[in-house]
């Protein structure tokens, strides 16, 4: 079996990066981000990137790094709030932005991974999202045609991988990661723990190893919390 386990972020991205490429990056807010691979992309100096991710990082964290280094030409996302740098660059005309409804974004990625070039959805009908796109009636309702999204490289974060590349995610850090893992020509996963084959329950694999080309153990696992909300323990 091909060895999918790489030594570190640099080795895992070796030979994959080029100017003008499209990269998918998993995560929802700062949860489930490939925290070790993003800085490696920054350090590689690759330019004019199209980045597909639900968000664009938050001040100082995640994809924000690639904005700060001005390596991103275009962002495809559903929500880019809570990111002053993004707003500045966008309003200054230095950054292209394609906003997608979150479900449309997820389904475009899913379609890309499944080899489905287009699909119809009710989301966005009658809004700017549907402008310039074919709208068709099915059973009396209008639907807009959306196309697939695929990437040259998808970078994802999982909890555990086995040496065959099977992945298991943890809680809501799963989010876009399994969908993106299917839609990269090459998918690189960083995980908190690499285990031997046979250690993960085959009934509980979230991403089958066929979708995963390269695996590393995360070197950065900060997992910053954006909004810490807690409750007091009632007195016993």
């Amino acid at each position, binding site marked *: 079996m091909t060895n999918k386990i790489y030594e570190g972020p640099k080795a895992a991205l070796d030979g994959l990066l080029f100017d003008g490429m499209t990269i998918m990056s998993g995560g929802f807010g700062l949860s489930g981000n490939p925290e070790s691979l993003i800085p490696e992309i920054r350090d590689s100096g690759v330019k004019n990137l199209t980045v597909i991710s639900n968000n664009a990082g938050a001040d100082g964290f995640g994809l924000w790094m690639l904005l700060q280094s001005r390596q991103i030409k275009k962002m495809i996302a559903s929500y880019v709030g809570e990111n002053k740098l993004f707003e500045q660059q966008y309003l200054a005309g230095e950054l292209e932005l394609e906003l997608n409804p979150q479900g449309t974004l997820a389904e475009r990625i899913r379609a890309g991974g499944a080899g489905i070039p287009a699909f119809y959805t009710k*989301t966005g009908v009658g809004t700017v999202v549907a402008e310039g796109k074919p709208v068709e009636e099915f059973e009396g309702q209008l639907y807009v045609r959306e196309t697939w999204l695929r990437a040259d490289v998808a970078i994802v974060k999982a909890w555990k991988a086995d040496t065959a590349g099977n992945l298991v995610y943890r809680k809501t850090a799963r989010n876009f990661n399994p969908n993106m893992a299917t839609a990269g020509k090459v998918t690189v996963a960083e995980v908190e723990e690499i285990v031997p084959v046979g250690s993960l329950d085959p009934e509980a694999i979230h991403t089958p190893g066929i979708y995963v080309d390269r695996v590393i153990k995360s070197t950065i696992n900060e997992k910053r919390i954006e909004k*810490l909300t807690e409750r007091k323990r009632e007195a016993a």
Partner: protein
Amino acid sequence: MAWTREEVAARAAKELKDGFYVNLGIGIPTLVANYIPEGVDVTLQSENGLLGIGPFPYEGEADPDLINAGKQTITILPSSSFFSSADSFAMIRGGHIDLTILGAMEVAANGDIANWTIPGKMVKGMGGAMDLVAGVKKVIVVMDHANKHGESKVLERCSLPLTGAGVVDLIITDLCVMACDKANGGGLTLIELAPDVTLDEVKAKTAAPFTVAPALAEAA
């Protein structure tokens, strides 16, 4: 007296029915979870990939891998399940969620809603809002009746870019509750007034035509 934010949330909670799967937006909608009526069991969905949102974690027990769509730390329940973003929006877009409660900047008599952008001013994105209004069975808007300039947010037609066209079922503001007949192209009916708010006040503060439910008209 007009309803407070908390009272608006409590009023919206009366729309919850036993067994409902519900998605709550950020802001006042999140507060609705605090007013779920006794004996009503609802399951809250979080579009980042969780069905069955539990309470906030105890101090020191927050898990960075467990957040809601507003990025707040949360907990799960014994009945909870996790899934991917594509699966999450299959639930939403496939019509499996019974009710969503959202905030808005503008709502129109024809059921249109605008809540995601102010051109030239605000660059944030629609997140999951367009999917929710398009795919969820019942859409309730909770908001202040007027904006900070005192202008009605209930309009004949929205002026801001839409989140969805002809999608709103019910509007709950600090002044009143209005139903929207979206199945028949729209049309607002005033069905409830906040305590001590008069029909004349709502008429004066609403920039859209509406009819008055018979029970209210009699009382006035």
